[in-house]
Each structure stands twice: as structure tokens, then as C-alpha cells.
């Protein structure tokens, strides 16, 4: 029987709570030295990433978080059997221990910010037009007119980027002071100004939350999404060859969970 892996925890003890995972199978801990791999049995590979399956995975990891430090592994990680799992644990034991020590007592929070890109650009164009500085002496040559057009686009893009940097810097002052680590992605789309994840110590999570409440009353036109506390999906550092976790896979899973959560609720989604 194959094993579905949810995460690595900092305990080799048996899981006493009744936790059920994918296919409704009981979740248990397979110890290796002083850590453990939390798994459930699975009959077949996962063909499609469904909302239900992603949430089942997430719920198991969140339950584990209540009593342990967890290194969540990517959704859909299936190991051939107990021997393969123990062999993998042996190979990455030191790495797992380092990550568990680094992430102990820490939680992940996500902050996403949407800004009105069209309005920001329109304002930039207005200001540039007001300045009225023509850098090129445009004659009737199509080549020069082409360069002139491109140069206008370049100036707008540059100013747009600078404005994004400025906003992000301010926001990061609010959140960054409560974070042990952070990852910020600017302008994933023109409207998605910031997609950030912060690793926050458990005893600072209320401060982090308050910082969010505070920033919401900031500049008008910005829209915010706060999420967490999550397992530290984006802060586990493992060799790529381990196949357990990569940045893009983590982000995909978290994005999927956020979207799924949004679709099932309204207010506190």
C-alpha cells in the first residue's frame, strides 16, 4: 500500500487524536529518530487536484500544527511504502531538523494587495503630459515616432514600477517588523500590487493582525486580503531533488486553498 505524505513533524510520538485524511484514511506518524513523517494509506495516485482533496490535505496539516512544528509537503506527495519513506527520512534528516528548528513556533501569514492599476497609469500619464517634456525631436520619420512611442511607454512603466515600490515599502514597514522572514512579490499582475508571505512568531501573531487592521485604514483605492495562520508552506527550504517542495508548487497549493476558502464562505472566508 502506498503512503500519502502530509508533512514532517518534530515528534516521533504516536498521534493520539483521530485525524482522517485523503480517502477518509486514518492519519498516523511513522517515526524516524526524534522526528516523524505523517501519512495515511492511499489506494491510487491523485489524478486531479480537487477542492475537496486540497482542503483535506490542509486540514490535516493544520491539525498537526496544534501540537507540533510541521514541515508541510506539497499536495499529492505519495511514497511507495514504509521502506522508501524511511530511506527518504534518512537522506534528509539533517535538513528536516534544521527546518524544524527554524520554523519552530512560527506561522505563515499571507497579505495580498490590489491597487487600481488603470487609475495609477492614468495619473502618471496626466503628470507626464503636464510636464510636457519631449525628449525626442520628433519629425515625420516613422522610426523616430516609433521610438518616441516606445519611450513614452517606457517612462510610464518606470514610474508605475516606482510607485509600486513606494507603496510596498510602506506596507512592508507595517508588517515586516513582526516577521522573522518574508517573501514579497511585486506586480504578479498589473492589479495585484503585492503578494507577500510573512513568517511570524506565534506570540507576535496578534500584533501582525493588528498591523493589518491598521493598514486597512490607509490610502483609499487599495484592497487587501489577509490569510493565515498557515503552515509555513513558503519557508521550508529543501533541496529541489527531494521532490517534496518547491516554491512554485507551494504557491500553487496555497493559492488553491485561498481560492477554495473564498468560494465556500463570504465574510470570514
Amino acid at each position: 500500500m502506498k503512503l500519502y505524505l502530509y508533512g514532517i513533524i518534530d515528534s516521533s510520538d504516536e498521534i493520539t487524536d483521530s485525524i482522517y485524511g485523503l480517502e477518509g484514511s486514518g492519519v498516523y506518524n511513522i517515526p524516524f529518530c526524534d522526528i516523524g513523517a505523517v501519512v495515511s494509506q492511499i489506494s491510487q495516485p491523485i489524478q486531479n487536484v480537487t477542492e475537496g482533496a486540497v482542503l483535506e490535505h490542509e486540514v490535516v496539516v493544520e491539525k498537526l500544527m496544534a501540537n507540533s512544528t510541521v514541515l508541510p509537503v506539497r499536495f499529492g506527495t505519495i511514497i511507495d511504502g514504509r521502506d522508501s519513506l524511511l530511506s527518504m527520512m534518512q537522506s534528509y534528516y539533517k535538513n528536516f531538523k534544521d527546518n524544524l528548528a527554524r520554523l519552530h513556533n512560527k506561522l505563515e501569514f499571507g497579505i495580498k494587495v490590489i491597487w487600481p492599476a488603470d487609475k495609477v497609469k492614468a495619473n502618471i500619464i496626466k503628470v507626464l503630459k503636464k510636464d510636457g517634456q519631449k525628449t525626442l525631436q520628433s519629425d515625420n520619420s516613422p522610426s523616430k515616432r516609433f521610438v518616441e512611442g516606445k519611450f513614452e511607454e517606457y517612462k510610464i512603466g518606470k514610474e508605475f514600477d516606482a510607485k509600486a515600490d513606494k507603496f510596498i515599502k510602506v506596507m512592508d514597514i507595517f508588517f515586516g517588523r513582526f516577521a522573522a522572514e518574508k517573501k514579497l512579490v511585486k506586480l504578479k499582475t498589473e492589479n495585484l500590487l503585492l503578494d507577500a508571505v510573512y513568517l511570524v512568531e506565534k506570540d507576535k501573531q496578534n500584533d501582525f493582525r493588528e498591523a493589518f487592521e491598521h493598514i486597512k485604514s490607509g490610502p483609499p483605492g487599495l484592497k487587501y486580503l489577509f490569510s493565515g495562520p498557515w503552515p509555513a508552506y513558503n519557508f521550508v527550504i529543501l533541496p529541489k531533488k527531494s521532490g517534496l517542495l518547491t516554491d512554485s508548487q507551494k504557491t500553487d497549493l496555497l493559492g488553491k486553498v485561498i481560492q477554495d476558502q473564498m468560494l465556500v464562505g463570504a465574510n470570514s472566508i
Partner: protein
Amino acid sequence: MIANALVETESPEEFVEEIQKAQDCLPKKIDANPKTVEKGLAKLVLTLIELIRKLLEKQAMRRVEAGSLSDEEIENVGETLMKLENKMDELKGIFGLKDEELNLNLGPLGDLM
């Protein structure tokens, strides 16, 4: 089944749309099955050409901004960039590719463009 993690926003639809948009513009792999191998390869090659074209264009704009190009050089740069852009449009048309398709997800490194 709902996870305990809180997701709070006053604009859920807008965030779903933007997350979806961000994911849609990232092809997970090059499509190289026997039926579409030509388009898959064209997409890869054109993505790389587009990257180089954009780098050239940006560098040219930096030089225009710095005022380090003579009139004649601006004329030449403009003609070259225009021809490159037209050729790219032509090639994209031949292979039925849109601008947003010319990108690659480089995993932990992010997007190519």
C-alpha cells in the same frame, strides 16, 4: 470541509480573478506532444526571442533617456525595433500565439518575463 486558517477580504471576487490571472499566464510546461510539437517548439523559441527583443528595447530606451544616442542612431534603433516587432507579430500570427502565451515559469526563479 473548511480549514481553520482565516482568509479575510472585502473583495473576494477580485482577488480570485487576479490569482487566476497570475496562474493562467504561467504555462507549466512546453507542449511537445506529437500533434502540437511544432507549436510547442515555436512557443519556446519565440518566448526566448521575445525576451531578447524586450531586453534590447529596454536598453535602447535607457540610452534614449540618458541622451547618449545621436539622431541618426535613434533613427537606426527605431527602424530595427520596428522591424523586430513586426516580424514577431508575423511569427506569432503564423503559430497562433498570443502575447500572454510567450512566457515561461522558471519555478523558484519566477517568470521569464
